């Protein structure tokens, strides 16, 4: 069974007045352990697709199965719970909680899952180590660089041991060095821990590292290629 299965998904904004067709019938499957980049020009629909896979937005038509569950059938509350357990998110502008330290930001999702303090502390330490920001653990986002903040965001996404991580333009605000470091971290997590990553990006540096590239244009998949 595939981790993510998308069948005939369409998304139309403002359907009653001036309809904007963001997705026009997407069929896609993503297996566990993939390192996939969804690419395309601005407005092609890649972020919309990512939002639908992540349960942040609902499709107009079609079905989305994540880990065997048709998320279109889930109520808003169950969808929130589903996201908390199954999906890790990395956002373009990091979106860390500014009043929390790096360690607290990472442990936050585990707190939402009512995990014990010891379990959180141990997991946070491991993650800080694996993304290479142990020294930043007690710093707040405003005291860290963009690259460090995005590493915290990756660690946060992984904290609850999700099935996969969705990263929307994760390198858009990073310099070359930070981008390379971040991609190294994510690639290692993919290789060593088998974590599935799905990116939306038009950053060539990310595309070059992806193992599978799905190209979208005008809301349709126009190319789907594996890279060895």
């Amino acid at each position: 069974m595939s981790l993510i299965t998308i069948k005939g998904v369409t998304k139309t904004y403002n359907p009653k007045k001036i309809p904007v067709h963001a997705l026009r019938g997407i069929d896609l499957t993503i297996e566990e352990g993939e390192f996939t980049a969804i690419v395309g020009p601005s407005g092609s629909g890649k972020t919309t697709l990512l939002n639908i896979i992540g349960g942040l937005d609902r499709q107009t038509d079609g079905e989305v199965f994540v880990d065997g569950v048709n998320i279109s059938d889930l109520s808003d509350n169950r969808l929130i719970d589903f996201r908390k357990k199954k999906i890790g998110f990395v956002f373009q502008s990091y979106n860390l909680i500014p009043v929390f330290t790096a360690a607290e930001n990472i442990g936050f999702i585990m707190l939402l899952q009512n995990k014990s303090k010891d379990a959180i502390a141990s997991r946070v330490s491991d993650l800080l180590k694996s993304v290479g920001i142990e020294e930043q653990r007690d710093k707040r986002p405003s005291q860290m660089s963009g690259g460090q903040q995005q590493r915290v965001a990756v660690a946060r996404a992984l904290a609850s041991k999700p099935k996969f991580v969705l990263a929307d333009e994760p390198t858009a605000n990073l310099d070359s060095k930070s981008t390379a470091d971040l991609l190294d971290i994510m690639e290692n997590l993919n290789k060593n821990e088998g974590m599935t990553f799905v990116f939306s990006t038009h950053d060539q540096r990310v595309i070059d590292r992806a193992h599978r590239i799905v190209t979208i244009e005008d809301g349709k998949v126009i190319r789907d290629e594996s890279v060895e």
Partner: protein
Amino acid sequence: MVLKIAWRNVWRNITRSLVVMGAIIIGIWSIIFLVGMVNGMIESYIDNAIKNEVSHIKIHHPEFIKDKESKYYITEIANVKAIIDTISGVKAVSYKTITNTMISSSHSGRGISTIGINSKDEIHVSGVSQHIVEGNYLTDTKKNQILISKRTAKKLKVKLRSKVVLTFQNLENEITMGAFRVVGLFETGNNIYDESVVFVRQNDINNLLGMNGYGHEVAILIDDLTELESVQKRIANLFPDLLVRNYKEVQPELGLFQSQIKMVGIIYMVIFMLALIFGIINTMMMAVLERVRELGMLMSVGMNKTKVFLMIVVETLLLAIIAAPIGLFLGYITTHYFHKTGINLFFYSEEGMKQFGFDKFIYPNVPTETFWQLVVAVSLTALLGSLYPAWKAIRLRPVEAIRGSFTSDKTRIFTRIINFINNKLLNRKLK
């Protein structure tokens, strides 16, 4: 976790939080002070009225209060006093003869109420002996002494040792008069009262009225005001033919004032809550709009709406929880200080305050329940004030909020109106 985020958020924008907390502190302080002042003024007014005019309990012939004629007297009034003296809870008793009189000097005359008192007993019941500003209180040594107020003296153009003439009807309905020498001038601080009464020895006035051994009024002070009704009832049972009334029945406005103390406090609190609630809504809405992206992230990663809602509510409550004790403490120490030293209101308007029967010094006094009421009021205000911003927060759509965009209901309505105007009105014009 919700508490942790809310607490950190309180200190995120210190200036904004301090402004809200400052508003709560000043609001609470001002309510305590205002309630204390009003309470102090009303208590002062009531105390003065009880001390100078009405006592705690008064006994009259039932007809006397309708028509203050001398014929409506209480017989063997000294015995009545002696019996009341034995009742537990009674602090002091005096009896008086009261008659409507014309007081005249060589310059002018005016209508006045003459009160014949037993000077020794009256010292324990009314405060007139403490308000002598010139001359002396009544003594037993000389006949026909009179105490008049300074204001009456001024109007009659008399001074100490001047003679005045009192004219009135005796029990036989004959006009009688007597010459009295001014031995003291008093000033109670209540101009209306001062201009309406003079005091003479009861024996002197009774001789002129021809009603020795009689009197019109028994005035009683009690030890504990909470026992007022029970003491009144005991006296009424002993003298079923007489009219026994407490001070609230004698001067209903005193009871009204007392009951209004609580109402005044509640009115102030409601005004304060209304002002504060808009301040809180405004501040918390700013906090929500400022954090749209963050709220979107929280909801995206799995924070449910209940927790988001609670986070905003708890943050607001924390502001109140921090500020309220400071406001309560400042209010307490301010009123406590002025309760000891008093506030000189005559500095502001001596004549005006005297006209209404207030003391020179007001001693603010805040009932304990006011503090509890404020705690409840502020908590309730913070809770109510947080509901709308919290509701706005949970109405955010994570997919929009995560990008920092927030389309409010108002914006949607506004856009619809603009579209309607464009589609209907402008298109029609073009046609």
